[in-house]
């Protein structure tokens, strides 16, 4: 039993004797074992001499689960520190920190290192270095905090002695092992961002958006160098842009003013880290084209004009065109000379309302808000006012009262009743109801407009407005075409009343969207407003042109407008977070569809799965039509399932900066947008047209590389 021991001891002693000289020289005096870690001072050169430069290292080897901290420790903890005692002539630079890991602790987030970390430290031996005994001692006092669930502070005095020379020795040597491990950690140190790339950030009330150009990565982590700038624990959603990436960082609650610079470290999935000193800037969704790219702008304008014309045929705008067409028929009898003027006033109404919305959008986006086209439909108050406007209009068309007669108290022909104000108003109405419909060709045009400078936005939207107005203007300018229209008669009254039906249908849709945004309690306010509108309409219809009745009607109208605004304030559902909002509008049967998050998109592609994203909103009629008629068709559903693509639905009903950014990365700014992301994270996404057909979807899925068609059952997104 005891026999083997002497032999073992002997062997051990021999082994130790063999390794001891090297260890004494290199490490043993330089290493201290403390609770949960071993800390060592690493000096690779064997000889020290004047004029020498090398990199020393402070090495922490940690027990599993324990960590030491990065230069910014995050929510708790402190980084290690080192104080040197060096021979005269030798100087040490600052300790350098390799990129850390995010270390979550319940609601907190720390930044640090597990297992092993070596902090490289640049050393310089000056020409004034004169070793009196032929040796140099590198002594350091090191303090640290090592934590797992609990934290233990530690300190150690480390020293390494080396042979010293007054001149460069003939064959200076280094310890290759030490040299190697230091080099390994040194290679991980953050690099300066290439000069061709840029880092800018913009601030909104809650977030910073950090924009880095030049990287092809699809995910990244940002570690702030400054404390109390961002909320460390908040997730950092990443979107890819055409020339880089954008990270959304949550501001620290107590940050008073935006910083001059956003300093930190950007770590990419491959371990590359860049030191980032982002400067404030307005972040365009793609590289701002400062050089005047006329062909691009002309293309955008042409697309917008064509899209505007097509917009006239979309279900949202059609009812308004009915009204306009009616006016045309009425005026065609007597006042053809006024037709052109009316046409232009109608055009002006469309133009002005487009300009107003674009101006608001440009200003808000410059202020850092993540908004896209149709953003006004993300406001329940706006939806309520729209629904009321159309309801009141519907009442008038159905014959409860005459708008022109009561409100302007003017007599005369029908055409006169609809004065220039009426034409202007019709133009405004056409624009407003057109917003939720993205017609074919419009998507790329709007995306292009909003990603470029303000004047390009205005140019493109002006073209869109002119396109929308064009058919009516053409009728006004070519009376010959108007002659094709039937002569006015009693049928006009019938048609007018019939038009109230699609108007009321639109009201039903708006009320449905409103309820989704504001909740059923707020709905009571809106419905009460409808009742008040009906009462006001009755006053106007029963006593037409009477000042008293008009005054009462206006009073009731004000009450009606106040009701839903108040109810939204008082009972409106709290703004839902993107995930809950998405979950809310997802039909329970659509089990293949998952709520969109940028993480899930990146994660799925990283796992080698293609991703189909349906960008939608409940206020977007075109989206509903596509979803119900195309995406839910049995054969399309089967094909989507068989393709192995992960199906994500990005619900933009409420404002959602992550979705807005993802859309921006596709060059889009609104819904509907359908994007098929190939599994290869570097391959560009394929954006489908706004109006889907089964063939379009199937062809797109068929174009996927067949290797990707594996079963893709994914679980809930992993929340960090």
């Amino acid at each position, binding site marked *: 039993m005891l026999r083997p021991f002497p032999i073992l001891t002997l062997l051990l002693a021999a082994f130790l004797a063999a390794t001891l000289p090297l260890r004494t020289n290199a490490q043993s005096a330089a290493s201290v074992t403390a609770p949960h870690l071993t800390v060592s001072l690493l000096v690779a050169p064997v000889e020290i001499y004047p004029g020498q430069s090398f990199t020393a290292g402070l090495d922490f080897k940690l027990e599993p689960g324990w960590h030491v901290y990065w230069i910014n420790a995050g929510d708790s903890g402190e980084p290690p520190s080192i104080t040197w005692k060096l021979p005269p002539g030798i100087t040490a630079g600052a300790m350098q920190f390799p990129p850390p890991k995010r270390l979550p*602790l319940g609601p907190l987030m720390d930044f640090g290192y597990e297992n092993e970390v070596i902090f490289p430290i640049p050393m310089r031996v000056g020409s004034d270095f004169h070793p009196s005994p032929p040796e140099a001692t590198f002594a350091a006092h090191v303090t640290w905090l090592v934590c797992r669930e609990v934290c233990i502070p530690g300190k150690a005095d480390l020293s390494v002695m080396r042979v010293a020379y007054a001149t460069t020795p003939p064959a200076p040597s280094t310890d290759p092992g030490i040299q190697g491990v230091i080099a390994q950690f040194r290679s991980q140190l953050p690099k300066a961002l290439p000069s061709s790339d840029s880092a800018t950030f913009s601030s909104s009330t809650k977030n910073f958006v950090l924009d880095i150009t030049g990287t092809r990565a699809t995910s990244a982590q940002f570690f702030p160098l400054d404390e109390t700038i961002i909320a460390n624990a908040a997730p950092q959603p990443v979107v890819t842009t055409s020339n880089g990436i954008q990270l959304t960082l949550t501001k620290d609650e*107590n940050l*008073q003013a935006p910083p001059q610079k956003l300093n930190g470290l950007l770590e990419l999935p491959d371990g590359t880290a860049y030191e980032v000193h982002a400067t404030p800037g307005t972040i365009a969704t793609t590289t701002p084209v400062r050089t005047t790219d006329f062909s691009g702008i002309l293309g955008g304008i042409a697309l917008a004009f064509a899209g505007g014309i097509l917009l006239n045929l979309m279900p949202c705008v059609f009812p308004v065109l009915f009204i306009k067409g009616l006016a045309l028929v009425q005026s065609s009898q007597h006042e053809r000379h006024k037709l052109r003027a009316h046409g232009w006033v109608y055009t002006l109404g469309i133009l002005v309302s487009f300009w107003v919305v674009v101006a608001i959008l440009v200003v808000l986006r410059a202020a850092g808000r993540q908004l896209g086209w149709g953003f006004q439909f993300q406001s329940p108050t706006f939806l309520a006012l729209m629904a009321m406007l159309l309801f009141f209009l519907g009442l008038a068309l159905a014959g409860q009262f005459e708008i022109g007669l009561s409100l302007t108290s003017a007599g005369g022909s029908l055409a006169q009743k609809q004065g220039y104000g009426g034409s202007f108003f019709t133009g405004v109405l056409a624009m407003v109801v057109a917003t939720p419909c993205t017609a074919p060709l419009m998507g790329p045009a709007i995306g292009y407009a909003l990603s470029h400078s303000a004047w390009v936005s205005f140019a493109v939207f002006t073209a869109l407005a002119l396109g929308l107005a064009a058919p009516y203007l053409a009728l006004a300018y070519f009376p010959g075409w108007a002659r094709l229209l039937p002569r006015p008669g009693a049928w006009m009254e019938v048609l007018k009343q019939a038009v109230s039906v699609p108007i009321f249908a639109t009201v039903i849709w708006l009320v449905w969207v409103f309820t989704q945004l504001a909740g059923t309690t707020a709905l009571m306010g809106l419905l009460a407003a409808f009742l008040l509108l009906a009462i006001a309409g009755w006053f106007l219809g029963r006593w037409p042109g009477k000042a008293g009745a008009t005054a009462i009607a206006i009073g009731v109208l004000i009450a009606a407008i106040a009701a839903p605004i108040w109810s939204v304030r008082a009972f409106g559902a709290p703004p839902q977070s993107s995930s809950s909002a998405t979950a809310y509008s997802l039909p329970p049967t659509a089990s293949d569809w998952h709520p969109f998050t940028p993480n899930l998109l990146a994660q799925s592609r990283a796992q080698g799965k293609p991703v189909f994203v349906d960008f939608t909103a409940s206020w977007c009629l075109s989206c509903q039509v596509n979803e119900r008629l195309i995406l839910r068709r049995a054969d399309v559903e089967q094909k989507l399932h068989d393709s192995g693509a992960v199906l994500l639905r990005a619900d933009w009903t409420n404002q959602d900066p992550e979705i807005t950014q993802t859309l921006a990365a596709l060059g889009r700014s609104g819904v509907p947008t359908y994007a098929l992301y190939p599994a290869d994270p570097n391959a560009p996404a394929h954006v489908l047209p706004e109006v889907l057909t089964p063939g379009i979807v199937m062809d797109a899925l068929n174009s996927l590389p067949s290797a990707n068609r594996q079963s893709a059952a994914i679980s809930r997104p992993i929340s960090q």
Partner: protein
Amino acid sequence: MRHFPVLTAALLAAFTLSAWAVRVGDAAPDFTATDSHGQTHKLSEYRGKYVVLEWTNNGCPFTQKHYSSGNMQNLQKEWTAKGVVWLTVLSSSPGAQGYMTASDENAYMAKVHADPTAALLDPSGTLGHEYDARTTPDMYVIDPGGKLIYAGAIDDHPTTEVSDIPNSKNYVSDALTEAMAGQPVATAYTRPYGCSVKYPGAD
């Protein structure tokens, strides 16, 4: 219909909680908590007085720095003598470092001569989460109007060395001194330093 007010109230409560960011300069979130003597404390009852909240964990070396030196006890005595309500908060979950039963905490306070107004037991972490307390120590100063006027570190030396205390600038004392003199608090927000608060599920 009968459940409706309850539901609305719950919804509103959930909304307010999530929307209630602890920001210096804003109203400090109200709370009700039980101390180590079984007594209930409600922040709003201390209107008219300065209130200091001190997150603690007696196993944490950073907290120990301030207790073994007597620094924390001296602050407690100094400021409670001037009418300040000093509430020490224990948000460590059961089983975690710094978790104390009521009798343990009373014995501990007697032993180290701690002298806060009360030690609030918050093993569920509710109060800690409400204030977004991150470390021990993590300090909050609330003015007589109920406004949060300081949040963050106890001083400017984030170390565990007792010898650093004499050279440290104590942010809590500075905030109280400035506010009582009618001056704005010069340093109103700092990064708290110390061990992480041992919330449930944080290991």
